[in-house]
């Protein structure tokens, strides 16, 4: 069930250039059950900024009633969020949307996780769940540059992990797809989250595979009421069928919606 709660900040730290990791605690965590879901965060009590910010759930700790988000400090909302210290309260609406289907990959199969930049966070909770299911996880994470890289170690503990940077300052120079090619990575299913350009490349190559992608779109309500975040379906004879990223997604089967 979706809940709204003032959750308290357990910890916050910067883990890469402009990338922050924040852990929040509250009863809402007990509602979180899928990797790839997100929360809608209001960073102040006032009207500036006015709207909530969608941020993915990166890690869930049911025992402690805590969850973690990893986000890039971009504009006003994430800047204000980055200034929160332990003990402060943050207004969280969630969990929202439908996450990655863990059950789509059977025990013993190999899942390839492809993340780009701030698309990496939701893959972390996913990786853990896949591993505990007995799935073999391979992660390919792409970043702009060395200083933007995060969570390499954490992913490495869960399976083979490759890093690509656009400028080649760390790992393989180039895009995640270059890494996949160069290393001849084989997989049974693929899960991906990142910039639309990356998702398009994934779609082009793997439209016939068992692949799931998580989309981003500017949001209003986050719960399916405002129609801000719609996308077209790929097979749409009428032209007006649609999916809402917030409530039907953010995760879709590859080939389901128009990127």
């Amino acid at each position, binding site marked *: *069930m*979706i809940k*709204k709660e003032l959750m308290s900040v357990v910890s916050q730290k910067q883990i890469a250039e402009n990338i922050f990791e924040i852990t929040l605690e509250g009863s809402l965590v007990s509602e979180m059950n899928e990797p790839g879901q997100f929360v809608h965060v*209001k960073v102040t009590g006032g*009207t*500036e*900024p*006015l*709207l*909530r910010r969608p941020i993915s759930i990166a890690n869930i700790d049911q025992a402690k009633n805590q969850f973690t988000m990893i986000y890039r400090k971009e504009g006003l909302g994430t800047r204000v969020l980055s200034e929160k210290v332990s003990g402060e309260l943050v207004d969280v*609406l969630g969990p929202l949307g439908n996450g990655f289907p863990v059950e789509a990959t059977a025990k013993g199969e190999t899942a390839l996780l492809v993340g780009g930049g701030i698309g990496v966070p939701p893959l972390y909770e996913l990786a853990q769940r896949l591993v505990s299911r007995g799935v073999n996880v391979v992660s390919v994470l792409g970043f702009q540059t060395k200083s933007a890289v995060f969570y390499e170690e954490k992913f490495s503990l869960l399976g083979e992990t490759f890093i690509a940077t656009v400028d080649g300052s760390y790992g393989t120079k180039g895009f995640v797809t270059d890494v996949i090619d160069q290393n001849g990575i084989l997989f049974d299913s693929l899960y991906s989250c990142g910039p639309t350009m990356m998702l398009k490349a994934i779609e082009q190559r793997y439209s016939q595979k068992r692949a799931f992608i998580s989309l981003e*779109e*500017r*949001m*209003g*309500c*986050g*719960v*399916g*009421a*405002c*129609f*801000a*975040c*719609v*996308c*077209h379906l790929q097979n749409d004879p*009428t*032209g*007006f069928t*649609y999916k809402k990223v917030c*409530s039907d997604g953010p995760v879709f089967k590859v080939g389901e919606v128009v990127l």
Partner: protein
Amino acid sequence: MSRLQIELPGLTLKNPIMPASGCFGFGKEYAKFYDLSLLGAIMIKATTLEPRFGNPTPRVAETTSGMLNAIGLQNPGLEKVMSEELPWLEQYDVPIIANVAGSQVEDYVEVAKQISKAPNVKALELNISCPNVKTGGIAFGTIPEVAAELTKQVKNVSEVPVYVKLSPNVSNIVSMAKAVEEAGADGLTMINTLIGMRINLKTGEPILSNKTGGLSGPAIKPVAIRMIYEVSQAVSIPIIGMGGVQSAEDVIEYFYAGASAVAVGTANFVDPFVCPSIIDELPNLLDELKIDHISECIGRSWGKRAKTINYSS
């Protein structure tokens, strides 16, 4: 709760709080948060004759204490609204105000005719003011004669009272209001969004793919209050006010300006519980202000507070 009850043409409102059109879908999403029967009414999403996908994304952008939207009247079309959305809403004890939109007079007339027959639709809201559709909208919302003619034709076919939703993007809101009143409107709803724009600093392009969008939220409240203040003194039909309402205090400010009920739009996105919270808070605020019944507040800023009593007959 009777100190919050308001009677308007076609509408017996348990309380004067209702979600604004386009900000609440057809109710399903918010029904997960609370019992929709708590609401005074529900203004459902604009319905057009045919299904519409609306504009390409991005469709929303944030502004200082406000937001822009260019949804473009996405909706499943009259047939589906009649066969699925409205029947689903019948499980709740809440009057529905159906927001009617179109590109030409005939569209409006056809939608009005049919949707006004739905058992739970107690009033229509004629959307002559959507800033986000290329055809039709503008003239209907800015030229008094055109608005009046549309109102007349819709009144002819509607089986329930007709409220006309006014655009704030006009030189003279009073003349628009008077024109539709004379044409037979039973009430007014105001304001729709102001037309605005934001540009992405990095790309130099408008953030919205539709380029311009409708500005809503607390930023526009002073404009809405002013317009309701002016219009409520010039017409004798009631006004449902909207624009940036977030709190019980805002509701009273709207009543003082001249509104007889209030719709909440953007604030639902910020806090899904905002409508029931306001409804909860209102009696306390009335106590604090030493006001028995909320209807006493109507038009207090210009001194005619007895006026409203007429509506409840």
